[in-house]
């Protein structure tokens, strides 16, 4: 025993897996490894209907590896249909799942992710609006400063406004300065708001947000 000697001849190419032959069907296989293979394959070569099939599977998928394969596949496909298919998962009780879904949107091109996230800025659910701001705030888009400004001036929930401030603290746009000040005036007695607004402001002047 010890170190095994490698095979003398190169291995014959492995037969095409069933996942490769009919990935849409394989996505519902009883074996998680087959489902994972199918999801990875669909991400790289999506037939029509791949987005819907992946989202359908994700609804009830319990295997972590398959879930991640589905979410990366949808991010890789990156069509408007893929983005739309992910949005409902931002709302899930399962924190790991909803955060992984947001991540998939953030990993899509901005022109696909932005239209999927924008409508959520007006949603009734505060946490969805926060996710929308985090998602949009991470995108390189000419309207980014406008979106963030609008949120700081108008959203009724302080944490949604603070998500916009956070986005600006990480990557500022000086044109948002007056909106930052509006937010501070709207929530005048909050030490955290004052701190965050100040941090974002000073990052515009080339300073560092005093953190790690």
């Amino acid at each position, binding site marked *: 025993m010890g170190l095994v000697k490698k095979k003398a001849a190169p291995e014959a190419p492995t037969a095409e897996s069933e996942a490769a032959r009919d990935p849409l069907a394989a996505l519902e296989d009883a074996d998680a490894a087959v489902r994972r293979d199918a999801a990875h394959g669909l991400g790289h070569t999506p037939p029509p209907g791949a987005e819907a099939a992946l989202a359908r599977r994700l609804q009830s998928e319990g295997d972590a590896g398959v879930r991640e394969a589905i979410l990366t596949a949808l991010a890789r496909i990156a069509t408007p249909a893929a983005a739309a298919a992910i949005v409902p998962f931002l709302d899930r009780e399962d*924190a*790991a799942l*909803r*955060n*992984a879904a*947001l*991540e998939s949107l*953030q990993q899509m091109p901005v022109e696909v992710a932005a239209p999927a996230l924008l409508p959520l800025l007006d949603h009734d659910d*505060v*946490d969805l609006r*926060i*996710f929308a701001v985090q998602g949009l705030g991470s995108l390189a888009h000419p309207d980014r400063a406008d979106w963030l400004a609008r949120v700081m001036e108008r959203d009724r929930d*302080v*944490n949604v406004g*603070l998500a916009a*401030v*956070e986005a600006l*603290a*990480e990557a500022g746009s000086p044109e948002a300065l007056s909106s930052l000040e509006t937010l501070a005036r709207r929530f005048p007695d*909050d*030490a*955290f*708001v004052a*701190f*965050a607004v100040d*941090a*974002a402001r000073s990052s515009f002047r080339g300073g560092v*947000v*005093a*953190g*790690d």
Partner: protein
Amino acid sequence: MSANDTGGPRVLVVDDAVTVRAFSRRVLEGAGFVVDEAVNGIEGLERAMAVPPDLVIVDVNMRKMDGYTMLRVLRRDPALRDVPAIMISTESKDSDREQALLAGANWYIVKPPRPEVLVEAARLLTGQPLSAEGAP
């Protein structure tokens, strides 16, 4: 408590928002704590394993590893299972607090955090005397 040479009890702040980390650092250092930071649950676990904290303050919604998952993993580690933890979140439903408790949190703070709440909770959970009523 494992107060180290350079300060008071050690607090690990785990949050993907740099404003939250910086604010917590400012407030807690002002109250005599030593502060470490991490951007998500994985980094938080790495940091906690390298330099065991006396208290963890952990956000719920983070990419790569959320706060509930981090706490569950923490509670499985023999060296870290008894570290007190404050969960901090924008969510304020009772079901959220229950979920935090079940994941292993000792306390729950709703964002945005108030400095006095952060300090008092940190003192309480690290066995420090609480501020006298009305004292700064």
